[in-house]
């Protein structure tokens, strides 16, 4: 049975001429409605003007090539969904109508989110209007309303609710009979889709929802939006008699058309959700890697604690490996080298016996200071360079080159970074 449906459907889609057997005339024309073309054209024009102004002020840092490509692709998908034969065919076939809805919610919406349209459209406005519009979201009431409307729980419910509601036979039939309701239906799909994907995508770099929660957010929506698809497939009664005549034109019964629509709602849509989940998961793992690296960089604090414990307990052997943990050098060897090279004569260095010199600057809290010698950013690499060849960096300063090796300088740096 299922096989028969697919064969029929494939035949109908790939070979419209052959499917005319069902009777009537199959319409394969474009539906170039003026208001659709005008809206898409106006959006493109506004985006172009805004983009040119942003580029003039800030180059391509804020709206890059990827964002512009997403806008063009999104516009192409909207055009395909609303003006190409996809729209004409969806008057006949419920299954093609489903394709149209999924294009709006799951393809055009995320592409548009990535293109940062609100930002660019804002720049298309004259300066004075831009100011007042730009300030609007910062107003107290507006900020609260926007915050509530973009809350993940609210957006998730609206997205799933809108999707289920418009496929109930009553509202669906109403939309097909009245053009204005039909426009409202499509606007609902696109707007709820836009809000849905805006929660998990961050073209501006600021995330509304962290990655783990985003995976759950998309995953639960995917499962839930499969349920209406299941209902549409698991029945032997056609729900949408309005399509019976149209389906016949393509050699399908209303029920076959409906089963096909349910499968499209369930499986291809499922692939899009799955792809989104995979991307979010990969980004999540990448972020975890970054966090682990940042944690390793901040390890000297821990290394210092371990070093202190080792000194107190007098068990240097056991913690030898641990005191390398900072990844810079060996903290204990560094402390010994500081005494050996005579640093205490000029510097005050916490934790080193007799280091109370007043010639050079005190090295208290060296791990938290911003600059080395007032000229280099305080990073482990710069600190090591400075300790080895201070005269090469600031010729004539009071700190002599002591002939310290790279490894020794790294050990000393490791110790200094424990001073926080």
């Amino acid at each position, binding site marked *: 049975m299922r096989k028969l449906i697919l064969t029929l459907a494939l035949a109908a889609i790939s070979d419209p001429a052959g499917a005319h057997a069902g009777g009537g005339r199959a319409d394969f024309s474009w539906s170039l409605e003026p208001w659709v073309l005008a809206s898409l054209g106006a959006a493109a024009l506004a985006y172009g003007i805004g983009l040119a102004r942003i580029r003039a002020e800030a180059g391509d840092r804020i709206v890059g090539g990827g964002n512009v490509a997403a806008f063009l692709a999104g516009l192409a998908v909207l055009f395909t969904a609303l003006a190409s034969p996809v729209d004409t065919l969806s008057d006949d076939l419920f299954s093609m109508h489903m394709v149209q809805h999924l294009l709006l919610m799951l393809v055009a919406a995320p592409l548009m989110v990535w293109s940062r349209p609100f930002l660019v459209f804002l720049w298309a406005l004259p300066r004075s209007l831009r100011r007042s519009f730009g300030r609007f979201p910062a107003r107290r009431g507006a900020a609260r309303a926007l915050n509530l409307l973009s809350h993940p729980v609210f957006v998730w419910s609206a997205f799933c609710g809108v999707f289920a509601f418009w496929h*109930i036979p*009553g*509202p669906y*039939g109403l939309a097909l009979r009245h053009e204005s309701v039909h426009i409202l239906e499509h606007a609902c799909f696109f707007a709820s889709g836009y809000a849905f994907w805006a929660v998990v995508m961050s073209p501006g770099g600021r995330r509304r929802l962290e990655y783990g929660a985003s995976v759950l957010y998309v995953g639960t929506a995917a499962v839930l939006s499969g349920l209406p698809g299941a*209902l549409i497939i698991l*029945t032997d009664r056609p*729900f949408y008699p309005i399509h019976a005549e149209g389906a016949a034109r393509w050699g399908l019964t209303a029920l076959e058309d409906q089963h096909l629509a349910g499968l499209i709602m369930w499986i291809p849509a499922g692939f899009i959700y799955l792809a989104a989940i995979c991307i979010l998961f990969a980004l999540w793992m990448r972020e975890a890697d970054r966090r682990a690296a940042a944690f390793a960089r901040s390890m000297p604090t821990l290394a210092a604690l371990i070093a202190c414990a080792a000194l107190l307990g007098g068990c240097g052997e056991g913690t030898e490996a641990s005191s390398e943990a900072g990844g810079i050098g060996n903290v204990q060897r560094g402390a010994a080298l500081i005494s050996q090279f005579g640093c205490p004569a000029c510097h005050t260095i916490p934790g080193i016996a007799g280091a109370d010199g007043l010639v050079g600057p005190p090295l208290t809290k060296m791990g938290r200071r911003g600059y080395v010698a007032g000229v280099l950013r305080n990073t482990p690499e710069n600190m090591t360079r400075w300790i080895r060849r201070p005269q090469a960096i600031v010729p004539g300063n009071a700190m002599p080159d002591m002939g310290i090796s790279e490894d020794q300088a790294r050990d000393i740096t490791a110790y200094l970074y424990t001073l926080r």
Partner: protein
Amino acid sequence: MPSAAARMRTLPVGSVGVRASGWWGMMCLIGTEAALFAYLLFSYYYFAVQFGRSFLPNELPSVRLSGPDTLILILSSVAVWWGERGIRQGSTVRLAIGLLLGSVLGAVFVGIQYLEWLDKPFVLSADSYSSLYFTITGFHMAHVAVGVLILVVLLAWSVLGYFDRVRHAAVSIGAIYWHFVDAVWLAIFFTFYVTPYLGW
């Protein structure tokens, strides 16, 4: 540190903020209960698509009792939310009033639901619709009853002074359960009382 401890007359109760293990436990519970209700409502829709309108009872469900009941449940959620906002500003009194209102309205909801049950001309075993009606609303009433119990316990604790501006994780955890139970009711209300009138 000792000075900070000495300033406190009694040891604090409960964790700071809401991200306590109890919070995650509640999130998991909400996950399982949401799945339960999703399956129950799916069964309803499954029967509906199999049998069409003949699945519905002759007399379509009316909003005479369920409409006001829905409003009562929403109001109880608002009351609990208002009380929780109160304790965040340190007002135990506002918390206690919110919890009291929430639990009373919750109990009224259960009472009106029971009246509606008595009002139905069919029993649990009459047909697939009646089975689903009593199973789904029954499961929901059980959840409301548990919620009222939680609110009453929280009310007792707030009167005993267990909560303050910083430590009120239990209130937030109980409140999120209550809001969840209300959200489930909205889905049930839409399913039983709205979809029959949408035309199918």
